[in-house]
């Protein structure tokens, strides 16, 4: 008999409700790769096929792919963690990466191995299908949906149903461009105005009874040019959710710019046409959809509530002493849920990276601590364990310490978002990924996570203007480029200030160019300026917002004033004086920009 099987409750009580996978897609992919290698498939059609199945190209090589596994509504279960752990060791670099859109990515995968990954994913119900390419990308949902005290109702089932409806749906196989849905819990916790379709749950009293529905925002998005979404109407009842989604997609499909790759996201269509005209079109189209499709087409929303059962007490109660750092972590990584006695615990990662051992331990942690038996990935390259009982928090923290997942600052500015940059992306100009990690290490060392003035601010860093890290909506945002002094190049970033992604979503204002090796001193200088000039009750975020809105009357009145203070810091030294300045983070050879073919528009 097996001893290991004697411990109770390690079997998963929570099972994925939806199987997203199809095994035959693995065989199909394997065969297509073979045909492609034999030259029986042309470059372009193969690329389209590959992207549709969720495999991106990789920096400077056609031998490797990045596999983007979708976590619809952000949900991820213990068995799925274990499989991803194994896959990251077998086919990737021993780590995986949580993205900003609730995907988990495996990088540097040999193209010929991608189908093996599909096969294993299928065993645990996951897919990467339509995670890239011109399709409906992963449908996101706030990691706090269901537990947020400000939400009207839990939108998770609607996010899942929407994902299910559009996945492999013929209607969504060759859109002019990618198409993104974000569901959220409330105004504060979502990113609904920065996406093609953003949805906030809403309840209206209609004839004395409560009617569920959504506030829907259309045509937002970040990128080379960013736009903020428009609210379609006061209230969209839940029966109209699908009709509205289909209507919007049909218009986009019909009118979206298929020729001009740089401007074919729906936001450009909305912008070119003008909001009112677009809005009218949507409402008309929706009437047609409703009239023609109502019988057959319905979202299958499964609102049976999840079982919440606190995992059996783990036997040893000895370690009840409170470890160092607990209070700091509790403050910067957890949130009280609307369900009394329960907390949501956010795990701090470095720019979204997680080792295969840590992936494995996440599975154990869920089983031991989450009363809902699964985890949720979030918007900032992170993952949350929810429904952790308050009495279990100390114990959980101790376990996190053992696996290197107990870093503090997860919900603060000290955990920046950094896209993959030169670590794997073809278009990257700088190593934004490493810079995000450098900032985090420095700021945790300085204990800036404990500074309440900084908690609600954010730092986001993209490796080029394409905005994958969403720098435009960061309090302090950066995107990479090359700088030059004489003939010597150095890694450089354009910095913007005052972006936000809440109810007052705005894009940051361009401030100045900051060399990579000056980014940390520049941020510290901004914090110093803020401390000198802040008013009572100010946070860095509120102070910067007054400045970008021209309503600050201290010494620093405008982004231009900030720029003036910073200018001396960013002056490039000569290469002789400071050779390190000319190296990007993580690199010991002189900096030069080098890019390959981008696939965002393929």
């Amino acid at each position, binding site marked *: *008999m097996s001893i290991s099987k004697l411990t109770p409750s390690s079997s998963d009580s929570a099972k994925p409700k939806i199987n997203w996978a199809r095994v035959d897609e693995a065989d199909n992919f394997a065969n297509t790769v*073979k045909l492609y290698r034999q030259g029986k498939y042309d470059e372009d059609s193969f690329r389209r096929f590959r992207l549709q199945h969720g495999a991106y190209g990789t920096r400077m090589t056609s031998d490797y792919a990045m596999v983007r596994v979708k976590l619809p509504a952000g949900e991820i279960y213990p068995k799925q963690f274990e499989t991803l752990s194994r896959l990251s060791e077998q086919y990737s*670099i021993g780590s995986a*990466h949580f993205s900003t859109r609730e995907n988990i990515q495996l990088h540097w995968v040999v193209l010929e191995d991608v189908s093996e990954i599909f096969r294993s994913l299928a065993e645990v119900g996951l897919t990467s299908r339509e995670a890239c390419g011109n399709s409906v990308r992963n449908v996101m949902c706030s990691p706090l949906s269901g537990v947020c005290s400000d939400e009207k109702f839990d939108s998770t089932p609607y996010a899942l149903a929407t994902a299910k409806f559009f996945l492999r749906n013929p209607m969504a196989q060759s859109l002019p461009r990618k198409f993104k849905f974000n569901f959220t819990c409330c105004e504060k916790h979502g990113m609904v105005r920065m996406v093609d379709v953003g949805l906030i749950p809403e309840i209206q009293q209609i004839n004395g009874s409560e009617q569920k529905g959504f506030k829907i925002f259309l045509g937002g998005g970040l990128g080379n040019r960013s736009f903020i979404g428009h609210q379609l109407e006061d209230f969209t009842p839940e029966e109209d959710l699908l009709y509205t989604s289909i209507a919007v997609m049909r218009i986009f499909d019909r009118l979206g710019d298929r020729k001009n790759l740089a401007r074919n996201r729906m936001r450009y269509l909305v912008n070119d046409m003008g909001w009112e005209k677009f809005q009218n079109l949507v409402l008309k189209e929706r009437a047609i959809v409703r009239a023609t499709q109502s019988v057959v087409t319905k979202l299958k929303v499964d609102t049976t509530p999840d079982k919440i059962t606190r995992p059996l007490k783990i036997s040893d109660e000895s370690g009840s002493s409170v470890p160092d750092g607990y209070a700091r972590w509790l403050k910067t990584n957890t949130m009280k849920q609307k369900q009394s006695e329960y907390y949501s615990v956010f795990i701090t990662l470095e720019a979204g*990276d997680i080792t295969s051992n840590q992936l494995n331990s996440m599975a154990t942690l869920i089983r031991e601590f989450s009363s809902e038996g699964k985890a949720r990935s979030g918007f900032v390259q992170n993952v949350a364990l929810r429904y952790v009982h308050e009495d279990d928090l100390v114990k959980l923290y101790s376990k996190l310490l053992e696996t290197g997942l107990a870093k503090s600052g997860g919900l603060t500015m000290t955990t920046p978002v950094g896209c*993959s940059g030169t*670590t794997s992306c073809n278009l990257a100009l700088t190593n934004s990924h490493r810079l995000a990690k450098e900032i985090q290490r420095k700021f945790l060392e300085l204990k800036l996570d404990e500074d309440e003035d900084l908690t609600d601010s954010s730092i986001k860093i993209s490796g080029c203007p394409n905005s994958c890290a969403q720098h435009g909506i960061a309090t302090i945002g950066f995107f990479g480029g090359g700088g030059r002094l004489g003939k010597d190049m150095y890694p450089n970033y354009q910095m913007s200030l005052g972006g936000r992604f809440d109810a007052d979503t705005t894009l940051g204002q361009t401030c100045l160019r900051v060399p990579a090796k000056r980014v940390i001193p520049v941020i510290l200088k901004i914090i110093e300026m803020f401390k000198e000039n802040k008013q009572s009750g100010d946070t860095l975020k509120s102070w910067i917002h007054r400045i970008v809105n021209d309503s600050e009357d201290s010494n620093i009145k405008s982004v231009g004033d900030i720029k003036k203070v910073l200018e001396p810091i960013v002056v490039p030294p000569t290469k002789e004086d400071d050779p390190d300045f000319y190296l990007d983070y*993580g690199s010991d050879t002189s900096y030069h920009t080098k890019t390959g073919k981008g696939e965002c528009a393929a």
Partner: protein
Amino acid sequence: MCSLTEAVKVTTDIDSLRSEIRDKSVRVIDVRREGDYKQDHIPNSVNLPLATLLSDDSPERVLKLVNSLGIDDETPVVVYDDTFGALASRVAWTLEWIGHSDVTLLETTFGNWKSLGLEIDSLTPEISNKEHSMNLQSNILATSDYLESAKLRDDVILIDNRERLNYLEQHIPGAVNLPYRTLSSNDGILRPKEDMKRLFDNRGISGDSEIITYCGSVGTLSGLAYYALKSTGIPNAKLYVRSFKEWKNLEKPTDKQADANYWDLSAE
């Protein structure tokens, strides 16, 4: 075609080994460190720590060791370790190399054996010396000189079994990377045959080629790959037993994946 890809038995399953131990019809070699072996091991197994073998793995020395373990040309040998089969593979390969034909790997690790609650023991069996003949199988060994010329041939595939990041950073020019972890399944040191075949087939690795494996230093990870290849019936596999460590010491050319900071994606 393909009388070439005749299946070869490379592992012994748990049940068979248990009955072979009862019949005393097999010599079981535990390649873990002496201290670990002394604590507990599979009953009746003998200890040959990998380090002991590696301290001098000339054919003459190996022959002496083999004799002292009571192995002659006819003795079936099963090797195990607690390191996902890699150390066991290196020892098994060495036996093959000096001409022992009946050697297999235990399908699982000692750790797993133990956790299944199977019989263990701490007694060291009495062994009387035997006489093994020497029949060197040079065709399963690749030297650096051999490799250098062979890898120019179209029908030779060179496989690097180290982890992906190490490979990206530096490898022998022309090698393809198949990290050792890819070869195992959840509970076995090697994938089931059909699974393994599919993996190789996707990579274009087939019996039509001669295949040379290497890893970081002493041919352990690549030894496992050698057996993975054999398990699918690939007839012509060779181990570059001195591996990348020697290659670098000899200052032979290497390649790297340029212009990408892949290390910074790692969470380690």
